[in-house]
């Protein structure tokens, strides 16, 4: 413990740490005692959450859907099958999240969006239980608590869906690989045959981002294209 900086900082009190140390880890360190039922959760959800997320967590009006896209088979395998399908439209929260602690922690710290940190622990258990029940992770008569979170974790649909075997973590903590997964070379001459345009915006989208003439400086080596009028080809 460094004493090189006299006069700077003071010990935090227990009360202070308790007020701010709210995180819950995947091993449930930090999870407060408490419980809440699916039914209680449904009431809370309808009062405090549904107008943004939809009654079944299906709405994408203010954010992407929370629930949908998982099956009972996923709950068995721990891998959400739809994540393999390139044609599956959208990815819900429950399709992606591997750790139930994440849901609890996040709802506890950040939801409802306009009144974060207003829920009591029992209420967080309850809405979490309700959300999980919508995805059939827990039955409709379930009471979620600190005691059974570890059991619920074992039913998370995408619990086996994560890998840390990649080169994109700046440290060795996960024993990932060090070698990047792309390996372009800095070729300088005749590197490819003629380049062909494979994708560009259709004409009808010309003005979809507003008039680009107004999104460029008045002077410069190039000016902005006037996209309010059709292109002069």
């Amino acid at each position, binding site marked *: *413990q*460094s004493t*090189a900086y006299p*006069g700077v*900082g003071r*010990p*935090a009190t227990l009360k202070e*740490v308790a007020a701010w*140390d709210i*995180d819950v*880890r*995947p091993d449930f360190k930090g999870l407060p005692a408490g419980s809440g039922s699916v039914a209680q959760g449904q009431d809370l959800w309808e009062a405090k959450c549904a107008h943004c997320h939809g009654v079944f967590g299906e709405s994408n*009006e*203010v*954010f992407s859907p929370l629930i949908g896209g998982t099956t009972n088979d996923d709950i068995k395998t721990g891998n959400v099958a739809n994540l*393999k399908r*390139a044609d599956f439209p959208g990815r819900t929260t429950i399709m*992606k*999240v*591997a750790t139930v602690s*994440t849901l609890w*922690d996040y709802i506890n*710290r*950040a939801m409802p969006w306009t009144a974060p*940190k207003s829920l009591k622990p029992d209420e967080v258990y309850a809405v979490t239980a309700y959300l999980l029940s919508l995805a059939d992770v827990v039955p409709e008569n379930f009471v979620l608590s600190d005691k059974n979170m570890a059991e619920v974790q074992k039913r998370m649909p*995408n619990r086996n869906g*994560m*890998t*840390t075997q*990649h080169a*994109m*973590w700046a*440290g060795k*903590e*996960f024993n990932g690989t060090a070698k*990047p*997964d792309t*390996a*372009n070379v800095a070729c*300088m*001459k*005749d*590197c490819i045959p003629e*380049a062909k*345009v*494979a*994708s560009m*915006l259709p004409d009808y989208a010309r003005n*979809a*981002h*507003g008039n*680009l003439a*107004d999104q460029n*400086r*008045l002077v410069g*080596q*190039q*000016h902005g294209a006037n996209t309010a009028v059709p*292109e002069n*080809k």
Partner: protein
Amino acid sequence: PMALGQGNPVPTEGGDPNILNLPEHATGLGQGVAANNGYGIPSKFESNVQRRQSPGLTQTTQASVSFAPLQSLFGIVTPSGLHFERHHQGWWDIDPSKHRFMINGMVKTPKVFTMDEIMRLPSVSRFHFIECGANTAVEWGNVAVPTVQYTHGMVSCSEFTGVPLITLLEIAGADFKNAKFILAEGGDGSSMTRTIPMSLILSGEVLVAYGQNGEMLRPENGYPLRLIVPGIQGVSWVKYLRRIEVGDMPYAAKDEAVHYMDLMPDGQHRQYTNIQECKSVVTTPSGGQVLLDKGFYNITGLAWSGRGKVKKVDVSVDGGRNWRQARLETPVLSKALTRFNIDWVWDGKPAIIQSRATDETGFVQPTYKHLRAARGTRSIYHNNAIQSWLVQENGEVKNVQVS
């Protein structure tokens, strides 16, 4: 039609009226010093240079993004007023005299600091880029947006001033032997949390910063305190920083267990992907601009790497067949934007402009072909592919992808 001729021909009266008729500002008295309450603002003729939302991208303005207007920026410093924004629960203007910073977890003594106290500690000032992990996300599959503001505008670069986090951890007596991760937590509604590897902190690079481009952080960027994690995606640069917890396992916070993970074709997500790999983009000419004339142009753009310094940038005007090495502006700094420039005489024929950066580890920025071969098209994050701009015969520049 073809691009225009001489941009500034001699009018028939034998001279440019802007020269022959002296303007008001050459013949009058201007304004006084310290106008506008002693804090200057840009010219009124610069009002097109704004950070902007991408229409239709998000459903609210508080869980949203504004993109920096890269097409109009110079050098490597991003003006703080144009720095890209990414908020999850809106931004706040927090009273710094009431802001507190706490360290707890695997430390001898949990500690509390005021801003006054943090600002007494040994400070460092360093230039670093910050890039959102989702920068260029919409282009994974196809061209989706018209300009470099929307394709690449979630990157910015500032000079940050603050205290190395390791100094603060030392004061608290962190258990450097057993601790492997820290959790960084924000003080706003979202209380953003992110897991940071202890190895990065030991390098001294991670800062608890209050200064940005010479003044305090802007409210939109985390005033009064923000974690600076050079090379790492922006979501880890926790704003309104209120707490650091020292721990021994990752935290699987919402924005590392639901978002900011990269979906692979096999349905697995790569989790804890935090590095921003080497990337570059030509900012002018770029999509949505019009070249007014044939002739000489200065192709310019930005390059960066989360693994260190940019070593070189090559530029192609034929869609990647042939390349020339661009000039790098000094200083070339580690984990900072690097500005490149290269000469080009446009002959009026279609051209496809690309840039390709190589960093000091030897990593070469991938093509879309490389990137999709490794990761498919659905991973959302970390799209660092080579960008292509088509200069058409009519002078208009279009965002394209090439095969």
